[in-house]
C-alpha cells in the first residue's frame, strides 16, 4: 500500500507540475499574442536601425511584386525596417500624402515608385530639406535632375524585344506595340518604342504596324490588343513591356486561335506568363529584374544614409526567357 501510494502520489505530482507548466506557457503565449507590439515595454519585434517608408502602387503587375520582394530581401542586411504603403494607381495623390507623412513624421528614408512622366524633382528637394533620404524606383527614369533612381533601361528593353521579333520573323515582321499605362507624350517618344524601332530598322521589310498605350484597368491590355488586331489583322507579332500587358495580349491571341500565327514578346516572368511561354503562346519574355531593383534601391538608401553621395540613376540589366528555358 505504502509503495503504491507513493508511486501514485509521485505520478499525480508530476501530472500536476506538468499541467501547471503547460498552463503557464499557454497563458503566457496567449498574453503575448494579445499584447502585441507598439507599446513601450513589449518590443517583441526585431529591432532595426533605419525606418524606410516604401510607397508603391497597388497593382497586380508582377513588376511591383518582384520589387517588393527585393526591398524586403535587402532590408535585414541593411538594418532597415520597411513600412509599405500601397495606393490605388488611380489615386496618385495618395502617394504624395504618404510622402508628406514620411517627411513630417521624421522617417529615415522614403522609397517611392515614379513613372517616367512624374515630376519627382520636388520630392528630392523636399526630402533634402527635411533631412530624409529619398530614393525613386521605376521602369524608366523620369526627367529632371535625379539624385537617386533605380530602374531598368527601357531603350535597351525595347531594342531587345525588337531584335527577338525580327529574329523570329525577319522582314515578314508586322509588329504591334503595346506600351504600358502611365506614360505621357506620344508613343513614338517612348524609350521602349524607340528601342523596338531601332531593332526593326535593321531588317528591311519589317515594320511596326501599330502602337497603343494601355489604360489603367486590368483588361486594358486585352482591349488594346483586340483593337490593334481588329484594325491591323496582318499583325504577326506583339511587343509588350509589362507582364500584365503580355498576359492580356496572350489572352486575345488564344481567344482568336492565333497561337503560332502571332508571336508575342513580353516582359517579366509571372507564373501565368511562364505557362504561356511553355505553351508557345508567348515566344519570349524580357525579364526586368524588379527584385534586383528593389534590392539595389534599399542598398542605395542605406549608402546615402551612411553619408555616401547619392548614386544618381542606376539602370539594371535584364534577361530573356525563351520557350525552352521556361520548359
Amino acid at each position, binding site marked *: 500500500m505504502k509503495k503504491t501510494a507513493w508511486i501514485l502520489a509521485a505520478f499525480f505530482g508530476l501530472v500536476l507540475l506538468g499541467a501547471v507548466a503547460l498552463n503557464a506557457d499557454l497563458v503566457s*503565449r496567449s498574453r503575448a499574442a494579445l499584447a502585441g507590439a507598439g*507599446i*513601450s515595454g513589449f518590443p517583441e519585434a526585431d529591432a532595426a536601425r533605419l525606418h524606410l517608408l516604401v510607397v508603391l502602387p497597388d497593382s497586380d503587375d508582377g513588376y511591383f511584386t518582384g520589387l517588393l520582394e527585393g526591398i524586403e530581401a535587402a532590408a535585414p542586411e541593411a538594418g532597415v525596417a520597411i*513600412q509599405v*504603403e500601397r495606393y490605388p494607381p488611380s489615386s496618385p495623390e495618395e502617394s504624395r500624402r504618404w510622402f508628406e507623412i514620411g517627411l513630417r513624421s*521624421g522617417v529615415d528614408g522614403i522609397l517611392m515608385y515614379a513613372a517616367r512622366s512624374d515630376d519627382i524633382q520636388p520630392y528630392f528637394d523636399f526630402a533634402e530639406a527635411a533631412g530624409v533620404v529619398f530614393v525613386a524606383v521605376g521602369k524608366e527614369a523620369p526627367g529632371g535632375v535625379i539624385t537617386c533612381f533605380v530602374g531598368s533601361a527601357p531603350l535597351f528593353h525595347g531594342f531587345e524585344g525588337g531584335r527577338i521579333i525580327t529574329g523570329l520573323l525577319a522582314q515578314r515582321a508586322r509588329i504591334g506595340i503595346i506600351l504600358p499605362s502611365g506614360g505621357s507624350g506620344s508613343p513614338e517618344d517612348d524609350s521602349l518604342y524607340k528601342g523596338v524601332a531601332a531593332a526593326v530598322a535593321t531588317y528591311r521589310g519589317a515594320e511596326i504596324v501599330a502602337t497603343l498605350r494601355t489604360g489603367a484597368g486590368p483588361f486594358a491590355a486585352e482591349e488594346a490588343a483586340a483593337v490593334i488586331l481588329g484594325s491591323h489583322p496582318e499583325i504577326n507579332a506583339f511587343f509588350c513591356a509589362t507582364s500584365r500587358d503580355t498576359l492580356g495580349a496572350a489572352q486575345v491571341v488564344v481567344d482568336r486561335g492565333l497561337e503560332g500565327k502571332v508571336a508575342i514578346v513580353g516582359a517579366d516572368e509571372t507564373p501565368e506568363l511562364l505557362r504561356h511561354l511553355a505553351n508557345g503562346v508567348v515566344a519570349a519574355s524580357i525579364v526586368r529584374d524588379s527584385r534586383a531593383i528593389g534590392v539595389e534601391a534599399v542598398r542605395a538608401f542605406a549608402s546615402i544614409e551612411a553619408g555616401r553621395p547619392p548614386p544618381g540613376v542606376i539602370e539594371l540589366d535584364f534577361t530573356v526567357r525563351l520557350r525552352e528555358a521556361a520548359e
Partner: protein
Amino acid sequence: MKRSSSLRARMTAVTVFMLAVVGAATLYTGFATGELSRSLGLLFRRNQLIEDIRAGLDGASSALSGYLSSRSEDYLASYRRNAAILVDRTSHIERRVHRDEIMLLQRQLAGLVGRFLLDADAAVAAKASGHIATFAAGYESAVRTVELSQAVIERIERRNLSASIVAYSGFESRIGSIVATNAVLALAAALLAFTVYVHYVWGMTGTLSTLADSARAIARGDYGRELPRIEAAEELVTMAEAFEEMRRSVRSSFDELKSKAEMERRLIEEDLRLVDMDRKLKDAELLALQAQINPHFLYNTLNAGMQLALVERAKSTGEFMEKLGLFIRYALRSPSRSVVVADEIACVERYVWLLRLRFGERFAFVIRSEADALAVKTPALVLQPLVENAVTHGFKGLERGGEVRVSARVEGGEVLLAVEDTGTGMDEATLAGLEDEGDGTESIGEGGIGLRNVMRRVRLASGGKGRVVIDSASGRGTTVCVHLPLADGAS
C-alpha cells in the same frame, strides 16, 4: 514498535498538505484566469492609446484654433492640457525602429504628433508676439499635420483591428487548451491530496484495526495471539505497547493461576491419597490388632504346652508347639511392619511344616530363594497368605497331587516373591473381582489375611510402585507374584 511523529502532528501535516495543494491549485487557476482576463484588455490598450491621441489632437487643434482666433486664456489652457495629454500618450509609443508594421505606423504617428506640437507651440509663441504670418503658417502646418495624423491613425486602427482579430483568434484557440489544463491541474491536485490523505489514514486506521482485532481475540479468550509489529504515530505505538503488555500480563496471570490450581489439585490428590493410605493402614492395623487376641497369652500358653510335651517326652508335640508358637508370634505382629525377605521365607517354611502335619504328603511344597533377595525389605505376611490361598482355594476338592512352589528372586530392578500352585485356577470373573482391592474391610476369611489385603499392603508400603500380578486360568493353576522395587525396597 517503531515510533514516528505524533498522531496530532501527522494529521495536522496531512491536512495542511491537502489544503496547500488544493488551495495552491485553486489560487493558480484563479490567477491564470485573471491574467487571461487582463490580457484581453491588452487587445484594446493599443486602440485606447490611439483613441486618446486622436482625441488629444482634436482637442489641441480645436483649442489652438480658438486661441489663435480669440487669444483666450481658456483656449490656451485647453491647448496646454491637450498637449500634455499628447506628450503623455505618445511617451508610451515605442520610438525605436522595429520590424513591425504597426510599430512603424505608431512611430510615425508619434513623429507627427511631435511635429504638430512644434508647429502649434511656434504658432502660439508667434501669436503672443504678434507675428501673424508666422503663427498663420504654423497653424496651417499644424492643421496639415493633424490631417495627416488622422490618416495614419485610420491606417493604424485598421491594422490594429486585423492584428487584434488574429491575436484574439490565437488567444481563443488556446482557451480550450487552457481550460483543459486547468481541469487536469485541479484534478491532479485533488488526486494527489486524496492519495496522500488515504495513505496516511490507511496507516493510522490500520493500526487501530489491528488493535481492535487483538482486543476481540482477547475477548474470545485467545491470549496467545501476539500483536504484530506496528510502525505508527507515537500515541498509537504507546497504545499498542500498553495493549501488548496487558495481554502478556493477563496471560501470565492466567498461566500462574492455572499452574497454582494444578499444583493445588495435585497437593489435594496427594493429601487424599495419604489420608487414604493412612486410613487403610490404620484399618489394616486395626484388623490385625483385632486378630491379635492376647498374643502373649497364646504364646505363653503354647510355651507351657511345649514344656509339658518335653516333660512327657513328647518330642514331636514339643516341636509342633515350638514351631506353632514361632509362627503365631510372627503372624500376630503388626502386618504394616517391614521385614526382610529372609523372614518371610522362614515364616513360610514354618507354615509349610505345620501344613505337612495336617496334610501329610498329599501336597508338595518347594521353596527357593536367591541370596541377593533375602536382604530386601518387604511388608510382613506377604508370602504366607498366598501359600494359604493356594492350599485353601487352589487345592479345594483336590485329594492329592498338588504342588506349591514359593520363590524369591531379583529381576529387572525388582524383587519378585512368587507363589505358584498347580491347583484349579481361577476363572475370569474371580480374577476380575480380585483386581478391585476393595476398601480394606473384607473379612479375613478362613484363618488368614486375604489376597486383596496383601495387594493393598504391597501398594501402600511401596508408595504405589509395588504390585501383585496374578496369572491364573481355570484348570491351569495360579501364580501370584509380588513385585517390589529394589530402589526403595519394601517399607
